[in-house]
């Protein structure tokens, strides 16, 4: 027998499902993103994953590097546990889409801060303070005898597509009137494979990245970096404009790393510094910074002692730098611009007040 009620069941069910899909409301003062991360129990951090010194998977399967330490600092600030992270390897073309779609909570992926990436009409990112001041360089085989950009005229140069380096190179070569053949690849691995395969005479990228990649080459000494620095590349962690409260939490976590170095607080002496702050009521600066008094953590939606958690987990900025890219690492980069402002560099944290 034909029963019309049956025919109605499915459409009605669908209709009731649809009615349940309400459009999301605006974000209030409290960060919806932060609440979601806390509910999930881990931070999803977008990294490069293939760049020694910044984010690299070691032989033991663990991620390490300067960018990775920034992720860990953030996880420590939220959970008090730097291991509550899921890393997502992103290539330079995927990164902004992954961030915008919410697939990752933040980018700590050697990303250059630029106007068009920051502006709401462009990529609409929200940048934290810069964690590495870099510049674009060019690497050539030492045996090629090339020492200037001009000597690269008419030669093929390998680039990773979708990076600021692609545009900088075009601008610079146009400026000096040297036509060249750009060979673009989607991932860093392909780019360096083509360079090592001898398809191009030079490869261009941020100088730190070139130095980092060179350490994993079969014969690192056979490659040299040209003296030319083609651009400013402030490598900066980023979130989106969609949740300013979450962006603030990331911003002040990075600031805390720099401020801690300025105050001489290290992973080794953090416990004694906390004890010192608790004992001495006159050290108001230190007490506020370490969350012994005041409510800075709460204002950001983080635990009161988030700074203590960060420094206990990863140390201050100087320690992170030395460990990953500085003298203690294979990259052996100078502090240079990345030194504290008090020592002639650009690392400067606004006051914790």
């Amino acid at each position, binding site marked *: 027998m*034909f029963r*019309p009620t049956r*025919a*109605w069941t499915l*459409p009605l069910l*669908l*209709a009731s499902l*649809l009615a349940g*899909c309400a*459009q999301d409301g605006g974000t209030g003062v409290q960060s919806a993103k932060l609440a979601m991360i806390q509910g999930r129990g881990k931070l999803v951090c977008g990294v490069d994953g293939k760049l020694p010194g910044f984010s690299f998977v070691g032989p033991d399967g663990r991620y390490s590097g300067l960018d990775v330490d920034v992720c860990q600092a953030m996880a420590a600030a939220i959970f008090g546990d730097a291991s509550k992270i899921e890393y997502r390897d992103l290539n*330079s*073309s995927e990164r*902004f*889409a992954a961030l*915008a779609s919410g697939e990752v909570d933040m980018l700590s992926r050697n990303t250059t801060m630029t106007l*068009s*990436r920051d502006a*709401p*009409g*462009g*990529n*609409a990112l929200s940048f934290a303070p810069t964690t590495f001041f870099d510049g674009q360089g060019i690497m050539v085989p030492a045996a090629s005898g090339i020492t200037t950009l001009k000597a690269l005229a008419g030669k*093929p140069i*390998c680039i990773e*597509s*979708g*990076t600021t380096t*692609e*545009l900088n190179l*075009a*601008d610079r*070569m*146009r400026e000096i009137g040297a036509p*060249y*053949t*750009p*060979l*673009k*690849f*989607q991932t860093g691995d*392909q780019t360096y*494979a*083509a360079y090592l*395969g*001898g*398809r191009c005479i030079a490869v261009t990228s941020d100088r730190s990245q070139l130095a980092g990649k060179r350490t994993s080459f079969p014969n690192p000494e056979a490659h040299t970096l040209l003296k030319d620095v083609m651009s400013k590349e402030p490598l900066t962690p980023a979130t989106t*404009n*969609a949740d300013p409260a979450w962006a603030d939490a990331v911003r002040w976590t990075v600031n805390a790393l720099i401020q801690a170095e300025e105050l001489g607080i290290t992973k080794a002496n953090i416990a004694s510094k906390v004890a010192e702050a608790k004992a001495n009521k006159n050290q108001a600066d230190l007490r506020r910074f370490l969350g012994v008094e005041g409510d800075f953590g709460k204002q950001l939606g983080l635990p009161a002692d988030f700074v203590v958690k960060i420094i206990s987990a990863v140390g201050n900025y100087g320690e992170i730098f030395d460990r990953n890219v500085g003298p203690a690492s294979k990259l052996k980069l100078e502090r240079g611009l990345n030194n504290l402002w008090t020592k002639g560099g650009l690392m400067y944290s606004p006051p914790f007040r």
Partner: protein
Amino acid sequence: MPAPQPLPGPSERPPWWRDRRVIPWLVQGVVALLVLSLIAFLLGNLVHNLTARGLLLSWRWLGEPAGFDISETVLPFDASMPYWRGLAAGLANTLRAVLSGLVGATLLGTLAGMASFSRNGLLRGLTRAYVETIRNIPLLLQLIFWYFVVFLSLPNGTAALQLPGIVLAKSGLYLAGLGQGLHWSLPQLINGVWQAPLRLSVEFAALLSGLIIYSGAFIAEVVRGGIASVPKGQWEAATSLGLGWFATLRHVVLPQALRVIVPGLNTQYISLAKNSSLAVAVGFTDLYSVAETTLNQTGRALEVYLVLLGVYLAMDLLISAVMNGLNRLVQIRER
């Protein structure tokens, strides 16, 4: 057992909610309404969220200077030209790869398909091995193999591989052809750099090799299926007329097999066109590669993807239309 109820007469219509002439229309109407409202909801949601982020469709960026370079182009392009010129140059590169790929894959596939019916056992075996190996390895992997393993290990300069009329070097493939003043000229080494009338970059060569060999294997199967569909009696009849193997194939079997082959080819051609977007893996700057750079520089994700979707759709529909026309030509006309 109760007596059966009298059936309602033709004049007595049941109420509308039990009327078999009404119910199906009603249900379909409701489902259509639901689908439409779902689409409207999704579109509304998209517009709402895009407006909130100030990302509503805008095409002004197309006219702004691109600022990036493209290494090899059919259409001339430089960094000071607008984005749309860049996308057009990318499209021209894609079309170049697709068209040469279609021709090459068709030739290779037809030959391999015919060879699988050869009386020569070695040739048959080789063809089977080719088809089975190539069909079962992902194209991306094959492209990367061609580029990084084969072409990038070619020597350069004087050490380059020299065949009659062709020089294979890391800097490119150099072919003999009509050079200046329409004289036939061979590749020459001038000051350590090869010069020839025709030069293919190794990126293009790797892409083309990958596409032709991969699609060729599928086309070989389509051709083999077509030939196998021709009844055995046709072969025997042709043989009894004294035609040889090749003549039988050429004049008797292939014309009849085409009816089966052409629709199958259509699918393979379309997938070849779509597969050309894997060029980005081997550093060949096709439409997809230019679009990706454009997307990264402008942040107009939606617009760039709409352009990409539109172009690939149009290209495939065009191929389909041409193949459908061809299909009508080869069908038997029934009178």
